[in-house]
């Protein structure tokens, strides 16, 4: 193994894995009923049921990605795009 640390940028990574991932996962879960093709009830319920899986995938990816800049950019894009979908759905746009 080289001298490279196991988790580069640890503070930014921990912040992303805790707060960033939680916000992104909740916003994604809330927006999914707008575009999932499972019928209204299941499109609402299934993202909620599988929220722990959504969160876990984002959490592990945030911890294991090499570049934190890419992680933060992805979390922000995911959050903003899904927030826009929510805004469109609720008529706020």
């Amino acid at each position, binding site marked *: *193994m080289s001298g490279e640390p*196991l*988790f580069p940028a640890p503070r930014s990574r921990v912040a992303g894995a805790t707060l960033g991932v*939680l916000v992104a996962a*909740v916003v994604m*879960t*809330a*927006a999914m*009923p*707008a575009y999932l093709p*499972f*019928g*209204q*009830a*299941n499109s*609402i*319920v*299934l*993202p*909620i*049921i599988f*929220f*722990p899986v959504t*969160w*876990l995938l984002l*959490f*592990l990816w945030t*911890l*294991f990605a090499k570049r934190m800049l890419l992680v933060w950019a992805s979390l922000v894009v995911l959050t903003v795009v899904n927030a826009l979908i*929510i805004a469109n*759905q*609720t008529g706020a746009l």
Partner: protein
Amino acid sequence: MQQVTTKRFYEVHSWVGAVTAILIFVIAFTGAVSVFGRPELKIWANEAIHQPQAHEPAAIEALVKERAADVPADYLDEITVLFPAVRSAPNLTVYFQHERETADGKTENHVIRFDHHPQTLELIERSEGEIREVFTTGQKDMADFIITFHADLHLGNPWGLLLTGLLGLTLFASIVTGVITHRKVLREAFTFRPFRSLRLLFTDSHKALGVWGLLFHGTIAFTGAFLGLAVVVLFPAAAFVAVGGDIDALADKFLPLGAPEKSGVAAPITFAEALAEVEETSSGPVVSLNLLASTDENGVALVNTLAGDGIVGYTYRYQTTGTVLEQAYTTFSRVGGAGGPILDAMFPLHFGNFAGTAVKFLWLFLGLSTAFLAVSGMMIWIERRVYGSTGSLAEKTYRRISRMTVGGCAGVVVGFVALFHAQLLLPVPGKAFGFWLGVVFFGVWAASLLWAMLRSNEYRSTKELLFVAAILSVLVAPMNAVVTGNHLANALTHGHLVTAGVDLTMLLAGIAVFAIALRLPSERPVRKGKYGRPAEPQIAQPVLSADAQT
């Protein structure tokens, strides 16, 4: 998998576990014992329901009619009956609901509630008010206390539920990263070397219990995260997007059909035949009954049962006129698709209240193993840092963490057992009882933590706290005999099987904990092990699996 990737997974597993271990232990231990909270501990804690409950449906119908005559007609559109000793109700409770306007122009769900003695059906208390107020301010017992503590740590909604939901997520992450780190699960399921060293004992039992209970631990973490976060964050968020924030509209989409269209033709309140039919045909006990439009010809009776032989309970919807069964359904059957059955299964899979008492015992033991996973993982983390090469803090800091873990974890066990004695001995009537149960539980927990922090030897303090828990546990049955007169022989001969079962379980658990405490070392073994091997073999990375080192 590359060694560095495995090591990363191991580090995540290790740190997530270390940060949350004490809280996960607390949640897992109280969750394991809460499996028997309703109705077993509820029955044990309430003398009036020690004996099995049986009431003629006709007698309950007559009682409801009698109470209906005492309330305004507006309250007859929604009547609920809660049966005693089935889940959380210690009394036979009948309440009448009416949505009415308050002085400030808002609407409130106002209820008039009648509590009846579970045996004689005599009226004990009449109360009224906003529904949540009426149902949250009643007298609480130790079963309510420990179940609520498991659900939200007594921090309430939303913060308590949010915290336990997040802990469910971290447990889920710990399990997944643990499985990835230790991929040779079959070999590790059978690796157990109790006499080689303390560290190997922790490591092997951590891995073996993790592997054998993997499906259970994963299910509990997944459903726990869902149950904690769904009510507080996820359903409100979904309601905001899907139905403009109206959570009631969302419930209307998912939950079973509500009140029927009223015909305007008056009819008497009838449900005895429907209740008798369900009691005879359902494998699960009837937990409650809802009467909608109860004095109308189109009125319906919803008879709700718990899971019997299957996983979920059913609601049987009867037209009260002519006692016709319209349909039988589960809580989320209207959702349909894959979501409905999964939602229906979430609650029983988490609480273990399906398919009989054997499943409850299985959930109890597996739940205790989840708690042990948390504390053994923490001990491995500390051992590696105090006696291994890992760790950057001073030894005394790690020892302090070790003492805090001992006090925090053993203390919650002692506090739980103390609740039994508090339930029997506290001379506090009425609604203050729940508060004093809290004083006892948190007082004992805090005293245990303080004791462990003040002792320099955490091995000795572990033994001492386990001895206290064991003695208190063994004394539950004698204390119950002295205070209520319901000693084991009496309980068994009078058919109070649940009370006798709880007393016996506490007795056996006390003996088992005493035996375990006797075998634990009083100080960290450093010389020869049982077979003359060095007690602390030179293992560089004992908790990393072999494939992580190759």
